[in-house]
């Protein structure tokens, strides 16, 4: 059999034999299973993935009946980012009516709760207008972005400056202070957009990018919002396969957050009142897409099996088996989407 055309994690084209692809699939699945202490892929699942790469169709899709929901983060920046001058409302309508999006998301171009706080009184009329004109459920979305609460962008001393000096306790305190500021902003923005402007829910995007203290802040904010508004939809999208322990000891409901893999992350999200959870598995650019996809499937499947709430895996630039490129190739994106949905019993992407 001839070689199979696929890609590396950086998007470059590569030709591999079926045996090489199988080897990558098996090695990656095993590696992920050992890291997260979860089951590896079965022989049937490996065969499924191998067949997916053998298939020469440029674009593939899920089987009839396995369709799932498609949510987008930072929706009102996506089209603008392509330098198409278009208003937020127009973008939402374009996604809803033109592109068939299942959910909508209003967002500020600087996608951080801290920055949204300053413009919340301008975002509320946008949401009020959007809910009158659209039909699909609508989030207000943003990132916790804990780094913005430390110097030079915020009031707290920067742990990045203290750690190299061995000031460990001081850095932990700084992370805790940053988390408190972030919780306040997330609850404030979430409350304003939900209670006063009519959003269906809030999306915490790229959660825990700044480590365990950021995960704590997002969980706590979700918990407070859920207590205030039991019907509020809360989506939490993650940023990496395990929680980076930058603080290292911070806990939520008695569970240490550092080092948690998706199957444990989702359980805490459920406790906090999150209604949709999005695991995010980053790509290794030096490995093949089969390697990356198998790895992402192992983590995501374990998460989906552990979950009671819907799982919307993150798939896009550099996550979920999609290459780290500004323009994700459809051959890669459609294969990653199909495999995640069908093998992980996903609720959405």
């Amino acid at each position, binding site marked *: 059999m001839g070689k199979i055309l696929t890609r590396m994690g950086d998007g470059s084209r590569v030709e591999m034999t079926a045996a090489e692809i199988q080897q990558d699939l098996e090695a990656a699945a095993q590696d992920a299973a050992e890291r997260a202490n979860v089951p590896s892929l079965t022989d049937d699942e490996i065969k499924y993935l191998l067949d997916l790469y053998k298939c020469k169709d440029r674009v593939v899709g899920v089987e009839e*009946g396995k369709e799932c929901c498609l949510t987008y983060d930072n929706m009102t920046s996506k089209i603008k980012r392509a330098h198409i001058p278009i208003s937020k409302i127009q973008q939402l309508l374009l996604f809803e009516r033109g592109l068939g999006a299942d959910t909508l998301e209003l967002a500020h171009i600087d996608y951080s709760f801290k920055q949204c706080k300053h413009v919340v009184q301008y975002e509320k009329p946008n949401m009020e207008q959007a809910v009158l004109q659209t039909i699909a459920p609508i989030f207000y979305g943003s990132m916790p972005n804990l780094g913005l609460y430390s110097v030079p962008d915020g009031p707290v001393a920067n742990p990045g400056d203290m750690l190299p000096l061995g000031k460990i306790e001081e850095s932990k305190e700084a992370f805790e202070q940053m988390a408190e500021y972030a919780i306040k902003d997330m609850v404030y923005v979430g409350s304003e957009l939900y209670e006063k402007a009519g959003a269906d829910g809030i999306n915490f995007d790229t959660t825990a990018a700044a480590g365990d203290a950021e995960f704590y802040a997002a969980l706590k904010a979700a918990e407070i919002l859920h207590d205030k508004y039991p019907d509020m939809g809360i989506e939490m999208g993650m940023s990496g396969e395990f929680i980076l322990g930058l603080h290292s000891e911070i806990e939520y409901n008695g569970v240490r957050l550092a080092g948690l893999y998706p199957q444990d992350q989702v359980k805490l999200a459920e406790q906090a009142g999150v209604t949709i959870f999005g695991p995010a598995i980053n790509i290794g650019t030096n490995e093949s897409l089969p390697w990356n996809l198998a790895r992402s499937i192992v983590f995501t499947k374990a998460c989906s099996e552990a979950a009671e709430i819907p799982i919307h895996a993150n798939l896009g630039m550099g996550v979920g088996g999609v290459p780290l490129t500004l323009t994700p190739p459809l051959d890669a994106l459609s294969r990653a989407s199909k495999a995640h949905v069908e093998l992980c019993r996903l609720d959405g992407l």
Partner: protein
Amino acid sequence: MGGIRTAGDLVARLQLNRGMRIDAAKKYVAEKLGVSVLDLSDTVVMSEVREELDIGRVNETPAVAKGIDAKFRIAELLDLAINCVNMFKERVGIRAYQSFD
């Protein structure tokens, strides 16, 4: 799933506001709409269903519900509180939740 081209927005609502997994959410919506689960992702079937139920569709025809108007009906149909619908009712003085028979 296809958003308002199909029943994607309705299924997403159950996931978002009730935390339902995909199969449960689809089953719930299909029952409420009186269609099969497979029909939910069928643009042809759903276009007709949405028009008949007046819950908004992509290609609008005159007098078909749009925006908040459609969401009033969606809330009723799915037996699901929709935040902006409730807010709208309060603002314009419609007090009862199921109020527009």
